[in-house]
């Protein structure tokens, strides 16, 4: 039974957000016997609520509150009010994600040392190593039930995968398989095996894909130590004269403002909302926002180098049948500057339905060049390209000077421009993706521009030194000891890998740290 806590109870930990970071952290703290109030801006939708329909699901799940954009990225032109495609619901974007669960490579925790000085890039080594994170990667993989780890078999290959695999092997790629996926290849943890339904992005109706919304959150609630408040939109974090945080104000769905007192606060609203909340919490003592003595809150926004390649064949593929992301080539994930860029990228199959293909294949395009591609939809295979992008201090989340949300709070402006390294990597990835499909007879290939961002990282980054970042190696604010960041915004750099597994591993590690510090009276 979920525990209702009094709003004046200042012994609770308040976690803001219930996705890969906040949802796992809130559940794990509750399991450890710590009282937690989780504030979730969205509602609760479970597998029976999800819909196998791209636009209807978008309307149900997506974060569509106002945001503004700037910079030379094409998303700013094509989707100016929708810089990110992420979820507003219990479970956050773990409802929508495709399930790819990859560990960072060892060198990706120390890229400043590995890559050297890259002009225009604000590179920094993480204040932690792969070795330190490995035990938590193990826990995360077991929690998520990641295929091809800990004896869990891989998923079978779909049509989209089989085309991709044949092309990749013909090209000489060695590391080609159906992925490390948080999608059950057999019943696991009380959840069913995947039925190859497709619509992974729309929420898995079988519950075969892991989501914190129906795994970690209910596990925490069952202890009686976790209360999740839905439709609770955090507005400000408050502090006392000693500079310690004391609680969080939030709006309920009727627009009434509440104040929940707190012993400590963990911010996990994703790389837009987390820095927004810190900046909107500016006070006389912290005029530039909370945790911002470095000036790095909102800076170094990363979204991964992304793009897609779709190939058209003379025979049917029917890529939409089966998991949305069905396989991977990891050969290009290495750091090999001889390719003309530092860092690496993954190639992962991806399928969209006709409604989203029309919206995303080449936004703004019209005429027969566009429509003949859609006419061949049945004969189409698709892949997504995802690689490490360079943190740049000028790529940033800031408060809009004139746009406010429904609660009267300034929204974020998302400013992003590609670094030359990002562009060189994307062009390489486009060429390799095209070559994969041509190796199995593609009659046409299409390099498709980035979609609204799903991997939003780095805007409250970890650093060894307080003046170079926002939080330390535990996600704890350099400035305020009882304020933590618990989502992907704490990433120092992005790696080539889909970020969710690392966010989950960091959440487990942070939960251990908070519990230890609380038990020895340090927090």
């Amino acid at each position, binding site marked *: 039974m979920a525990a209702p806590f009094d709003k004046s109870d200042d012994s609770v930990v308040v976690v803001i957000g219930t996705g890969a970071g906040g949802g796992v952290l809130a559940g794990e703290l509750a399991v450890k016997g710590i009282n937690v109030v989780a504030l979730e801006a969205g509602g609760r939708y479970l597998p029976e609520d999800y819909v196998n*329909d791209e*636009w*209807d699901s978008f309307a149900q799940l997506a974060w569509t509150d106002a945001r503004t954009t700037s910079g030379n990225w094409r998303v700013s032109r094509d989707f100016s*009010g929708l810089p990110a495609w992420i979820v507003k619901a219990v479970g956050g974007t773990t409802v929508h994600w495709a399930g790819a669960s990859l560990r960072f490579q060892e060198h990706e925790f120390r890229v400043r040392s590995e890559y050297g000085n890259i002009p225009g890039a604000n590179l920094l080594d993480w204040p932690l190593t792969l070795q330190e994170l490995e035990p938590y990667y193990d826990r995360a993989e077991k929690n998520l039930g990641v295929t091809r780890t800990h004896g869990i078999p891989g998923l079978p290959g779909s*049509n989209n995968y089989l085309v991709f695999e044949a092309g990749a092997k013909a090209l000489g790629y060695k590391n080609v398989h159906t992925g490390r996926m948080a999608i059950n290849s057999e019943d696991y943890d009380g959840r069913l095996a995947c039925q190859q*339904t497709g619509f992974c992005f729309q929420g898995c109706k079988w519950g075969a894909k892991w989501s914190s919304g129906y795994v970690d959150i209910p596990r925490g609630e069952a202890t009686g130590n976790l209360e999740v408040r839905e439709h609770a939109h955090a507005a400000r974090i408050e502090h006392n004269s000693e500079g310690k945080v004391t609680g969080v104000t939030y709006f309920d769905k009727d627009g009434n403002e509440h104040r929940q007192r707190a012993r400590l606060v963990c911010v996990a609203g994703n790389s837009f909302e987390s820095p927004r909340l810190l900046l909107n919490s500016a006070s006389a003592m912290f005029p530039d926002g909370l945790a911002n003595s470095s000036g790095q809150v909102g800076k170094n926004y990363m979204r991964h180098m992304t793009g897609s390649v779709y190939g058209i064949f003379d025979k049917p*593929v029917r890529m939409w*049948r089966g998991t949305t992301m069905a396989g991977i080539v990891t050969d290009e994930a290495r750091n090999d500057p001889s390719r003309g860029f530092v860092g690496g990228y993954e190639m992962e199959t991806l399928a969209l339905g*006709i*409604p989203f293909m029309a919206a995303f294949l080449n936004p703004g395009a019209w005429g027969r060049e566009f429509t003949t591609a859609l006419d061949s939809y049945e004969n189409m295979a698709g892949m997504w390209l995802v690689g490490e992008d360079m943190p740049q201090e000028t790529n940033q989340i800031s408060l809009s000077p004139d746009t406010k949300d429904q609660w009267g709070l300034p929204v974020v402006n998302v400013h992003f421009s590609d670094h030359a390294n990002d562009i060189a990597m994307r062009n390489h990835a486009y060429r390799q993706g095209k070559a994969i499909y041509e190796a199995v007879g593609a009659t046409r290939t299409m390099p498709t521009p980035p979609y609204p961002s799903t991997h939003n990282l780095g805007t409250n980054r970890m650093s060894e030194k307080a003046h170079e970042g926002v939080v330390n190696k535990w996600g704890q604010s350099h400035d305020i000891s009882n304020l933590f960041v618990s989502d992907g915004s704490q990433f120092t750099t992005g790696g080539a890998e889909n970020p969710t597994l690392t966010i989950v591993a960091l959440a487990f590690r942070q939960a251990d740290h908070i519990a230890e510090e609380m038990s020895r009276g340090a927090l």
Partner: protein
Amino acid sequence: MQKENVLTRRDLLARSMGVAGAFTLGGSFIAATDAAWALEVKHLQPRTMATLVQMARDIYPHDSIGDEFYAIAVKGYDTPEQAPGIEEGIAMLDGMSGGGYLDIGWEADRNAVLRRVQDTEFFQMIRGGLVVGLYNQKEVWPIFGYEGESFSKGGYMDRGFNDINWL
């Protein structure tokens, strides 16, 4: 993806029913020459709607998709609020066509006109609306081979998720 251009399924259903009911409602129609479909217009001139349907087809031409689906996709502009702007936009298009857009025989020549107006608010509103209004009609999905919802059928585990046979 701009909100004002996103049609709900309810909108689309309402539009489909509007088309089906057109024969019994009376009023102004535009109709296919073989009377396979007809569309009642209440606020737009019939020729304006016919031009809008042709413009929609020229923006997203699919030879195997019938005019009725394009008509459904633009039917929502036939309102007292939207009609004046549409009349104005189509008048502009006709003007650019040296008379009537509908009188231009070849698609390539109509495309040349559209390229000259493609940065206008009017063109972008029509194009943006079609992305959802045309491609989110469940009735057009089978024309592309797309099968839509699959959960109620148990997914594709036993229905061909890996049935490719030509590799």
